[in-house]
C-alpha cells in the first residue's frame, strides 16, 4: 500500500536539494539562482503531476498527514485575536476540543475546534483528537454562550472519531453527541462548520449540524473509517483504499452529492505546504458565508438549518 510519504518522497528530495543549493549560495556567495529556479520549476511540475491524480486513499492520507495544520494553527493564522476558554462546568476540560472567543474580519465569533497533538506527548494529551463526552459538553456550553450573546459559531472539525473507550461510554458519549447536534439545531445565530482534516462519523457531525458545512479540498468526511469499512466489506483492513473509493468520502464527492455547501481550495501540495495561504482561504470562505447568513433573521436561521438537513436522503417510493 502506497502511503502519502512515498508519493511525497520525490518532492521532498527536490526540496532538500533546493535548500542545500540556497545554503551553498549563501555560504560561498556564488550565484546558483538559475539552478535553483530550474529545480523549483521541476518541483512545481512534479507537484502538479502528483496532485492532479490523487486517489480517495491519497486524500485520506493527506487529511491525516502528521504535518497538516490543526484547529489552533488555523485559529492563530486567521483570527485577529483569540482567547481560549476552558471546561464543561461538570467536572472536566477535554483537551481534544478547544473553544473560545475570536475576532475575524470585523466579526466576533465563538470558535470550537477539534485539536490533535503535534508530538507524541501532545498527541496523547489531546487523545489523538478523539473527544470524550466532556468535550462535546464543553462545545455545548460554548454554543449556549454564543446564543446568549448573539455571536455566530464557527466549528473546525478534525477527528478520527469520538472516543470509544470505557470512560467515555460510562459518561454517555452517545448522548453527548446527540445533545451537541440538538443544541446546534436550536441556535438562532449563524453557524458554520469547516471540515479541516478528518471528519470522522458521529464524532464529526456532533459539531457540524450547522447552517453551512464547508470542506477543505483534501479533507475527508465519512460515516466509518475506510479501514473499518474494509474489514466488514472485504474482511481485510488492508483493502482500505478500495473502501475509501466506495465510501465517496472526499470533498468533491460530498459536494456532488449535495451534502456540503462548498470546497475551500488548498495550495498546491496541500495545506501543510502552506498553512498561511490555507488559513486565509478558510477565512475568506467563512467571512463570505457569514455575510450571507447575517441577512437572515434568527428564526430564518433555525429554519434554514432544519431544512438543510431535512432534505438530505435518497430513496424511492413504491406504488
Amino acid at each position, binding site marked *: 500500500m502506497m502511503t502519502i510519504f512515498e508519493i511525497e518522497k520525490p518532492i521532498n528530495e527536490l526540496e532538500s536539494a533546493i535548500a542545500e543549493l540556497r545554503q551553498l549560495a549563501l555560504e560561498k556567495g556564488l550565484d546558483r539562482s538559475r539552478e535553483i529556479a530550474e529545480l523549483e520549476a521541476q518541483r512545481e511540475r512534479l507537484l502538479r503531476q502528483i496532485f492532479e491524480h490523487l486517489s480517495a486513499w491519497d486524500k485520506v492520507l493527506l487529511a491525516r498527514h502528521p504535518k497538516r495544520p490543526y484547529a489552533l494553527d488555523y485559529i492563530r493564522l486567521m483570527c485577529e485575536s483569540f482567547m481560549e476558554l476552558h471546561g464543561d462546568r461538570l467536572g472536566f476540560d477535554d483537551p481534544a476540543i478547544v473553544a473560545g472567543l475570536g475576532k475575524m474580519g470585523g466579526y466576533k465569533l465563538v470558535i470550537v475546534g477539534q485539536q490533535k497533538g503535534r508530538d507524541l506527548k501532545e498527541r496523547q494529551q489531546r487523545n489523538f483528537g*478523539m473527544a470524550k463526552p466532556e468535550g462535546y459538553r464543553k462545545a455545548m456550553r460554548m454554543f449556549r454562550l454564543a446564543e446568549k450573546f448573539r455571536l455566530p459559531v464557527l466549528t473546525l472539525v478534525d477527528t478520527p*472519531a*469520538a472516543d*470509544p*473507550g*470505557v470512560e*467515555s*461510554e*460510562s*459518561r*454517555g*458519549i*452517545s*448522548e453527548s*453527541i*446527540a*445533545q451537541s*447536534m*440538538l443544541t446546534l*439545531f*436550536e441556535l438562532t445565530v449563524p453557524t458554520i462548520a469547516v471540515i479541516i482534516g478528518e471528519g470522522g*462519523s*458521529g464524532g*464529526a*457531525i*456532533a459539531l*457540524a*449540524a450547522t447552517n453551512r458545512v464547508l470542506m477543505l479540498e483534501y479533507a475527508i*468526511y*465519512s*460515516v*466509518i473509517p475506510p*479501514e*473499518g*469499512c474494509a*474489514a*466488514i*466489506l472485504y474482511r481485510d483492513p488492508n483493502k482500505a483504499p478500495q473502501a475509501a473509493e*466506495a*465510501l*465517496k*468520502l472526499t470533498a468533491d464527492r*460530498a459536494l456532488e*452529492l449535495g*451534502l456540503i455547501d462548498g470546497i475551500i481550495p488548498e495550495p498546491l501540495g496541500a495545506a501543510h505546504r502552506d498553512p498561511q495561504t490555507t488559513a486565509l482561504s478558510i477565512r475568506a470562505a467563512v467571512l463570505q458565508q457569514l455575510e450571507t447568513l447575517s441577512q437572515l433573521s434568527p428564526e430564518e436561521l433555525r429554519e434554514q*438549518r*432544519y431544512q438543510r*438537513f*431535512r432534505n*438530505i*436522503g*435518497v*430513496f*424511492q*417510493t*413504491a*406504488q
Partner: protein
Amino acid sequence: MQRRAAVSMIPEQWVQCIKCKKILFRPDFERALRVCTHCGYHHRLSARERILYTVDPDSFRETDAELRSADPLGFPEYAEKLRKGVATSGEQEAIITGTATLNGYEIVIGVMDFGFMGGSMGSVVGEKVTRAFERAAERKLPVIMFCASGGARMQEGLISLMQMAKTTAAVGKLHRTRMPYIAVFTDPTMAGVLASFASLADVILAEPGALVGFAGQRVAAQAGVSKAPANFQTAEFQYEHGMIDLIVPRRQIRPTLAYLLEMLLP
C-alpha cells in the same frame, strides 16, 4: 458486535434458548413474549411482533410503508444486501412507523427491525423517523420509539451519517410541542442510532440484557479499548451510569409506557 443466531429450531413444538440452551415448549415461550422461561433471556423480536405485543389490538395504522432504499453510491453488494434484508425480515426496511393507540392513548410509534440489515439507518430509516416526529409534532401526539440497530448504514456513506442530524432536528421539533417522547432500547441499540434520536427521549427504557453502546466491539478493539467491565455496553451498564431511566422486563413494557403517557400528557 456479538452475533446471535435466531432461536434455533428443534422439531415440532420445541425451541432452544440461545442463552441457557434449555429446551422450551414453544407455546409457553410465545406466551412469555419470547422471554426464556428458565433464564429470563429476552430473545429478539421482529418489528411486527413488537407492535403486536405493545399497542391496542387492531389499532396500528402503518405510515410511509411505500419508501424504498435506493443505492445512491452504487456501493458494493448493497442491492444484494437489501434483497436479503427483505427476504430474511419480511419487511421492506429496517423500521416500521405508524399510528396506534396504547391503553387508549393515541400515539405515533416507530419500531426498528434488527433482521433487516442489522436495523441500520440509511435514507429510508432517517426519513421515516423524521416524518414520524414531524407528524407527531403537527398532530400533537406522543412518540414511542423501539430502537434496535447496529448504527448508521455504511452502504449509503455520508448520506447515512446525515440522517443522525436530520432525525435529531426532528426530535427538537417535537420537544417544542411539549409532547412526550419515550424510547425503548432493545437488543442492540448502538452507534449512530444511539448517538442521535434514541438518546434524546424524555424517558428512556431498556430491556434487560440489551446491548447498548457507542462503538461496536470491532471498532473498540481497534481503538485499543481494554479493561472493559464484564457488563460493558449492556443496558445494565448504561443504567448504572445514569444513561437509562429504567430497565423493564418485556411483559412490563406496555403498562410502563401507559403509566408514562398518563403522567406526561396534559
